[in-house]
């Protein structure tokens, strides 16, 4: 069970990293234009 000492903080840390990444992307305006982002991915000129 000593493995918990590593696994639990590791799981929490990963989750926290995901949360921080989401909050960063939200702050960065990544969700302002969801329709446009879908099209930009397939447009080939930039």
């Amino acid at each position, binding site marked *: 069970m000593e493995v918990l000492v590593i696994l639990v903080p590791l*799981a*929490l840390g990963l*989750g926290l990293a995901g949360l921080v990444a*989401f909050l960063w992307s*939200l702050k960065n305006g990544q969700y302002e*234009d969801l*329709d*446009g982002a879908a099209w*930009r991915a397939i447009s080939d*000129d930039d």
Partner: protein
Amino acid sequence: MSKQATRDFSHYVTDIGSGLKHIDLAVEGVSCSGCMSKIERSLSALPDVTLARVNLTNRRVALEWKQGTLDPARFIDRLAELGYKAYPFETKSAEAKEAEQSRFLLRCLAVAAFATMNVMMLSIPVWSGNVSDMLPEQRDFFHWLSALIALPAAAYAGQPFFRLALSALRAGGVNMDVPISIGVTLALGMSLVETIDHAAHAYFDAAIMLLTFLLVGRVLDQNMRRRTRAVAGNLAALKAETATKFVSRDEISEVPVAAIRPGDIVLLRPGERCAVDGTVIDGRSEIDQSLITGETVHVPAGQGARIYAGSLNVSGALRVGVSAASEGTLLAEITRLLDNALQARSRYTRLADRASRLYAPVVHATALLTVLGWVLLGASWHDAIVTGVAVLIITCPCALGLAIPTVQTVASGAMFRAGALLNAGDAIERLAEADHVIFDKTGTLTLPELEVTNAADIPADVFSLAGRLALSSHHPVASAVAQAANAKSPLIGVVEEPGQGVRAEVDGVEIRLGRPAFCGAEALAAVRADVDPEASIVAFSRADEKYLFAVRQGLRPDARAIIAALKQRGFVIEILSGDRAPAVRAAAAALGIADWRAGVTPADKIARIEELKRQGRNVMMVGDGINDAPSLAAAHVSMSPISAAHLSQSTADLVFLGKPLAPVLAAIDFSRKALHVMRQNLWLAIVYNLFAVPLAICGLVTPLIAAAAMSGSSILVMLTALRARSVRRA
């Protein structure tokens, strides 16, 4: 007045520091990736432009450039060359606030979802450990970890609910947020106490999961409303509310209406719609006030005449002294009626609030009775309270909180696609209850634009020649002829005789377009006027040949079919119009509406609505004019076309786009379906409680059962909500 006005958009330009300027443009017709890259490439190619980015969701372009010689009007010209109509867009403070609110809800949802996943990861070992061989120390350790995650997460992510619950309590009422807040707080508090006591069960997972599901509902709701509002805001900007202002004695500049102040002097050319209220200083003309009064006959306007925003100048140029600009431009009478009507409407209670008014006392009483019952049966206070809190958790309105917003989101999305934009959140419920429809005539049943009604009687070559001649006139009736003829190239050497018409010489023959007298066609016109007294007559002469064009506002193309469909659904339909009786009679006869009144004032319209209300009818008002605004507010539910006056549009619950009347019917069908699904969802929630509550009262609900029941019912409710997407077409 051939002078080209300069355009001044400085009102919309913001300074973003380090020598850069920023402007937002609303663009019409951007809908694909092709347009997006075309616009971005073309605008970035302009010198000094540092950023050109299209937002496809709200159909806007953000532009930044180095301060200097670049005139923002260039962007608009460049977009026009590409075939897009654009107009500077000013973010209204309400929209900015809503965007911030939406980001906050998303942050809350992210925090809650993160906490739910991690607490669940800790809970599953505890649930399985409880039936096998987990050491109590390990269980306590997991509970403490859960508490460490869930408590701060709930404190943050619960804010939207706590705030609304507090404000409802302060106002002396109860809404859905009150039981949610109480349930979550008690569940977390009880779990903390249990953890300290080394007990087997803690409900951190259920509490935080509840918040997550409810936040999903809130985020969906918010996003749909934001999207609708962005489109409505763009359309308002694209209506290009500009005025031609005198910047000096004889120098003019085209400026946005928002930059006009009382005391300014504006020029109103023939064919232009006035954007301000004011008094004529100089000039003679006729004005069309149909957007204000519903009356289609033109009114003469000379020095000293009052002009209201929304009037269309028909014949001569006018200099107008501004008395009030953009906001608050109305007749005192209409404003007063409107205020009264709006107050009356705010008393409507939404289905969700009615449900929670019943719900909260029942749930809280059940929990209290459970506690007392167990104590009377000899259980300890501790065990009794734990069971009571379990009742609160299991009944916490997870499904109830999702039942209505998810349906509303789905239904408003369907309406959006059908061309109806929702202004008010509770409009769906009110629309579904409507059983009596009152239509305004001018601009609602009829199209706001003029059209030629006797095009078939006129030879094609004459029609196209007349159309080319008409291009040189500013008169709105002439413009209708030009448009009907699809004329593109104006004739050369056209002379305009003010107040009479236009003439030109083609192949040595003089042609004229204008008043019948100007073309020597009075006798013909007199005969025509008997046939169709409502139409404006334009005459055309080529040497001795004379032709007449009858021009008037046509009915919306599908008006007859939609009225018939409404009747078939059991609606009582009537027309209340400010226009004269013959015009209203003709429209009513064409549409098969037996019940109509003409020459109705705004106060009379309200009186009629009140009378119907007293008879227990739920009135839906469809209108566009400023004279309709008070009755739009007084009606149970209201709808305006997008061409409506500003005031009417902001008062109406729904706004519909385009020429057809079909969105009115679609909105009614979707709202009826939505109300049906909402009711079903509420019943589902009740049935779920009928099964779950007895279990909870008996003390059989473990955290595992609570979590499973909660997620199961939420998913069920969301799936049912999807049915609101489609209606059966009759």
